């Protein structure tokens, strides 16, 4: 008997069941939290992001994006950035370079990535209930750009905001991509005397740039 069969047999023996015994439906999923009004989404999301230690900046139009990114990078004294492969992020490569910022691809050598000052990605969804960003690695090379540098700049169109975690779980693609990361605020620890310290292993600064939807065109 293989180890798999041995353990499964032990489980069946303990439960007193046989292989192939019918399995009833699991308890039906319940609505765990009620959706927010669509008009509240942005305010609630922003409030939650701030509550978990992140920052939010609302941009009236996509044309404001470059200016906002540059201002944030300058304020953080960031000279090198890792760019994800999302088109909207890649479109900033040239103007950023022209402004004296060194731009790295997210598949650059690891020691270059480790030395970068900031990372720029988009998020596929935001969850208003918890101020959470959802990064889908199947859609964008965002895993390392959002994790290694001390500053993570994340672009999110407001149209991608969802109300609750339950809604977000339903919105995930089928089949699931190989990695999805939920991000709520900067990396944190309280392992030394319960004192909150941000930036322990991941970014210490998370800045979400929300792009207003109605003015996108």
């Amino acid at each position, binding site marked *: 008997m293989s180890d798999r069969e041995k353990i499964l047999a032990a489980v069946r023996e303990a439960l007193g069941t046989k292989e192939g015994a019918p399995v009833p439906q699991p308890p039906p*999923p319940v609505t765990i939290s009620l959706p927010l009004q669509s008009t509240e989404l942005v305010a609630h999301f922003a409030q939650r992001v701030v509550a978990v230690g992140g920052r939010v900046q609302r941009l009236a139009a996509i044309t404001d994006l470059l200016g906002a990114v540059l201002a944030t990078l300058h304020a953080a004294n960031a000279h090198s950035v890792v760019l994800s492969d999302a088109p909207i992020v890649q479109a900033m490569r040239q103007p950023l370079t022209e402004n004296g910022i060194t731009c790295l691809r997210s598949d650059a050598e690891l020691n270059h990535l480790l030395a970068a000052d900031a990372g720029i990605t988009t998020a596929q969804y935001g969850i208003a209930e918890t101020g959470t960003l959802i990064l889908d690695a199947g859609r964008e090379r965002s895993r390392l750009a959002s994790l290694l540098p001390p500053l993570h700049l994340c672009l999110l169109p407001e149209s991608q905001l969802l109300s609750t*975690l339950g809604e977000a779980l339903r919105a995930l693609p089928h*089949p699931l991509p190989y990695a999805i990361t939920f991000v709520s605020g*900067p990396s944190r620890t309280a392992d030394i005397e319960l004192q909150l310290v941000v930036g322990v292993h991941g970014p210490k600064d998370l800045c979400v740039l929300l792009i207003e939807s109605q003015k996108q065109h």
Partner: protein
Amino acid sequence: MENFAANALAALANPIQREALHKATTTFAERRLGVLLRAPNWQDWRTHARAIKDHTLEHLDYYLQQFANNAAARGCVVHWAATGDDANRIVTEITKAANTTAAVKSKSMTTEEIHLNEALAKAGVDAVETDLGEWIIQLAGEVPFHIVVPAIHKTRAQIGQLLHEKIGVAKDASAAELTAAARVVLREKFAAAGIGISGGNFLIAETGSLLILENEGNARLCTSLPRVHVAVVGIEKVIPRNADLDVFLKLLPRSGTGQDLTTYQSLLTGPKTAASHEGPAEIHIVLLDNGRTRMLREPKTRQALACIRCGACLNACPVYQQVGGHAYGSVYPGPIGAVITPQLVSLKRGKQLPFASTLCGACREVCPVKIDIPELLLHLRGEVLVGNQAAKAAAPDRLQALGFSIWAFFMRGKRRYAFATTLARCCDRMFSPLLRHLPPLSGWHKGRELPRLAKRSFRAQWRKQG
């Protein structure tokens, strides 16, 4: 060793540790209450979560197979380990095949349970803990004090001294400076590691996915930088559907650290499939039994397998609050540790643990999956006593029997009773200080104060009033 009584006494004599423990348990308990105020459906969530766990455990063979098949279909290698030794051997072989001696680990109670680090060290693999608290514990050569915050018993000064000796930071460094120094050292470890080792909070049967919760980002690093990722996960961690995560993600962080959600959740489904992907090329999932199928046998003990390791019962427990995690002498401390250690390790070695509780019920009250820990402790006490009965039958307790007949004699008449209480009052006044140093009272007295009798009995006072 699981010698609770001796360990507890040592812990009680350590004022620094008690201070830290008090701060930690009360802070977490208060934060938990704070977030609960914003969760009006809390009781419904608990009921729903428990129903999902009960259902999955009742059909565990089905869901394990479903999980294993789906994970394999997505390119994971699924291993089955009946014992901790089996799991250690499997992980050691994977590191050999990966041709590496450098491993980074994210926090996992399951790998603590099977002592994976020691097994890897024997095979020449350097497994570095990367969760800040776990790393501190590893440098100090200790075991976790708390399942959520492992180094909570250490002061900043003690950690400063330790890191001063190990990596040369200034002794008086602040928490932020110590953390920053750790980041630098551990980044090098991440960059050099050939293998990342993690546990897992949930296995999702319908998709073959693994979900890991964390705050620091080290689990993200462990599961995205090294070429190979191994997750060691207990078989009880499987849940049916992705949608079920909703309720568990509501309950777990709120119960554990009082957060609405931990900073990161990684939902991992198979290794990377394209050259452009960022992530491990190989993912191994080791499904661990190690005594769990034994706990599955009876519905009563089965419920302990619903535990999601949030740590709320530790923070709520008046015994843990006083003695802390090391007193339990086991990997899993606190009320849930007292329940699962004797069952995972063996009733013989963990037999003191079911008695290390006042049965006050605080743990049952806070448990997000409604595990009736006091009921389980009573059940295990029964088992321990049954084990002791053979010895008892050989030597019945004559002294106890005599004591009870004397008691019965004096309780049988008003005069006798009055005489007995007067006598007791005299003895109390004259011999009390002496009595507490003589057996059998001396043993009882170690942890308690014998109350003095009132100067005049209730009956005497009543007579005077009337």
